[in-house]
């Protein structure tokens, strides 16, 4: 009997301590949220600020309007829609082809046994450790040489950019994909084989449908990476109408950044929005993919 009173006191004090601790942590969370969201809010405000320059901006614009968007989307000097289209085109083609390359290769690594299999797997991983960025001078010279013979895949073409991106497709993603393939029991293939299915039929009719969820995650991660890629595109693309959105916005920001701040903000928001939406909608799947080693710069 006598012990119940202290125990209750202890319980309430622990509860109080927990409340205080949670409260404190919520305050910290608030600070962090301000830190992480403020730049975005600031950009939204800038894009709505009719005067459009850095100096005149306040967090809540005096006469909000869509002038910046109008100027951005109708300007002849900076073909925003062309850039946006280029980015979507390059990122979609690369993501799909890269997925096809990885999936078929991972299937072979997972299902066939052949000499040099381990060596190849390790080799692929090792080669990809060297970032493509380092060989950028060589890539530039090579593409310019190839362009002397086939101008269609020379400098300033999307084809050359896509090819260079695809050159890096066989990397860590093969490991990831092979890991998933290994979890699909072999008995499934074997029973199909007994019924006379070819490897290709097993791959396309049986394995791919089973892999669909992870395929989508890898596709999206690839897409986001390519969409945000800047340096290779900057080096290989030369003319205004070939630029991807990232290169275009960088060039745009390079000249008279302070005066064009509002227009830039509008462009940055439109450019960032698709990716932000994808992320927030597919948070859990993407986080799953990330923690298993998928790449995101």
């Amino acid at each position, binding site marked *: 009997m006598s012990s119940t009173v202290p125990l209750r006191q202890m319980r309430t004090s622990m509860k109080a301590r927990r409340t205080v601790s949670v409260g404190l*942590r*919520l305050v910290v*969370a608030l600070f*962090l*949220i301000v830190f*992480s969201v403020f*730049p975005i809010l600031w950009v939204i405000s*800038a894009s709505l600020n009719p005067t459009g320059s850095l*100096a005149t901006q306040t967090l809540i614009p005096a006469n909000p309007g869509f002038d910046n968007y109008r100027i951005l989307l109708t300007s002849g000097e900076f073909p925003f829609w062309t850039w946006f289209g280029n980015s979507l085109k390059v990122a979609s083609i690369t993501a799909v082809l890269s997925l096809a*390359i990885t999936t*078929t290769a991972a*299937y*072979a690594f997972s299902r*066939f*046994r*052949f000499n040099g*299999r381990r060596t190849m797997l390790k080799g692929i991983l090792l080669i*990809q*450790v*060297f*970032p*493509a960025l*380092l*060989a*950028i*001078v060589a*890539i*530039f*010279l*090579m593409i310019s*040489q190839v362009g*002397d013979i086939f101008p269609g895949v020379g400098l300033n073409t999307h084809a050359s950019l896509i090819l260079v991106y*695809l050159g*890096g*497709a*066989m990397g860590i993603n093969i*490991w990831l994909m092979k890991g998933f393939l290994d979890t699909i029991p*072999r008995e499934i293939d074997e029973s199909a*084989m007994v019924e*006379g299915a*070819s*490897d290709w039929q097993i791959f396309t009719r049986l394995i791919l449908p089973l892999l669909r969820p992870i395929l989508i995650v890898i596709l999206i991660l690839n897409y986001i990476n390519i*969409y*945000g890629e*800047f*340096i290779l595109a900057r080096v290989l693309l030369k003319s205004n109408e070939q630029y991807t959105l*990232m290169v275009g*916005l*960088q060039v745009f*920001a390079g000249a008279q*950044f302070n005066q064009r701040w509002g227009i830039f903000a509008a462009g*940055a928001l439109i*450019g*960032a929005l698709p*990716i*932000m939406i994808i992320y*927030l909608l597919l*948070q859990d799947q993407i986080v799953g993919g*990330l923690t298993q*080693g998928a790449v995101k710069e």
Partner: protein
Amino acid sequence: MSDRVSPPLPRTRAAALSPFLRLVFLLAVDSTAVFFLLRVVALGYYPLAAATFVVLVVVNVILLHRKAYPIRWMVVGLVLMAMFTIYPILFTIWVSFTNYGEGHLITQEQAIDQILAEKYLPETGRAYSWTAYKSAAGDYVLWLQDAAGTGYLAVPGEPLTQPQPGEAGLGALDEDGIPETIEGFNRLNTILATTDQNLPNILFGEAGSTIQIRSPKEAAELLPLYTYDPERDAMISQETGVVFQNIRGTFSAPDGTQLRPGFVETIQLANFREFFTSPALRGPLVRIITWNFAFAILSLLFNLALGLGIAIMFNERGFPFKKLIRSLLIIPYTVPALLTILIWRGMLNPELGVIDRFLENLIGWAPPWFTDQWLAKVAILLINLWLSYPYFMLICSGALQSISEDYYSAAQVDGASAWQQFWQITLPLLLVAVGPLLIASLIFNFNNFNLIYLFNAGGPPMAGTPTPAGHTDILISYVYNLAFTASRGVNYGFAAAITMVIFFIVGTITLLQFRYTNMWEEVSENV
């Protein structure tokens, strides 16, 4: 059990058709590649030719050899990897041993051909007297007579001919043996001919033995200005007798005059020697390398500290608004990095940016983020923190959930404080779990070109460096400047040599990682 070494027998029509399709495909690939090869060789791009040839042979083996069946599933990926990842790496290695760069872009043969094509007008030697004719359209022809009085008709771009009157539109010859008329052309009198602005610049006759007007009286055949002496590897001027010796890919005279163009030549370790010993470069390079490591390591520490801190604070099950907080906190990660960096560049603008205006009002000081080297470094670390902490938060909270509660209960029984629990249990276990990702992040930041280049292009610039360098430049952005900003002449060879040094650093870190984490073994187990 089910290991398949060779392809299963064709069982379906599609499978029976496939060898035929494969041959057609191979034929198309081979013919394109052979065409490409021939052109590449003709243009003198030998490294590219060698790479194409090797890849072509391997592709043929893969598609024709039965045992290579499994490789066919990845042949496209392998070809692309070989051409666009492996070849550039090998090419970079080769370039690092050469003087490839501005003025040294073509092969020695091509450079010699170009230099040998240069002609000069000898002061003496075989000469002709000349008479000029001009058409209404402004075309010229010359009537030349050698010392013996033989007449020749010289037309630009065509061989000399010896027409008789009546042929080729020639009219009758006058007493000097010069045609009175040439059909379609008017004969110019001496005054018109000697005052004509165009005539002295026109090359008559076919390429290789061209004739140019030397004086009002004489025209003469142009001679090659240089001859090449393969034994001495030198060009000799026929006009002055000066010997231009091949020095590091340029034919140079003793007085320093150089013949253009230069050419690509292996210069062994000269680039590396310059990198390690040049006193002019040592200053900037030591600073760049120091900052490069400091940046990568500090970024990792700060980003990990914040990410881990957040993960621990909100890891508790049933924490209010957990999901919402996470969604808001990962926002920085969802914006493409390039846009983030440019946005921060705007916000940190010293006169106009929101942060500086706020600080100005608050404490009367607007930090010059772009012109002070230390503040520029702080700004870069701050931006990188904003960019990357959500990633660390995500991987850390994933890893935290995998640490068993039992450890903590046991520690509590032993009376360990929360602080001790963190250092003794959480941190070690977490580092094991996310170790490879941390190393990957370290390597990524070591080469985080985008951030450096987009924020301030490596600025503020260092004073008095032989090649442009800035206080926040890291090796890769310095390489980029060397290779692509032509203000002082691009130098691919030196850029490639630095790239090799970066390869070496990154490779060492990676190998150590494989060695000291058991990633390799894990990987091998799954194979």
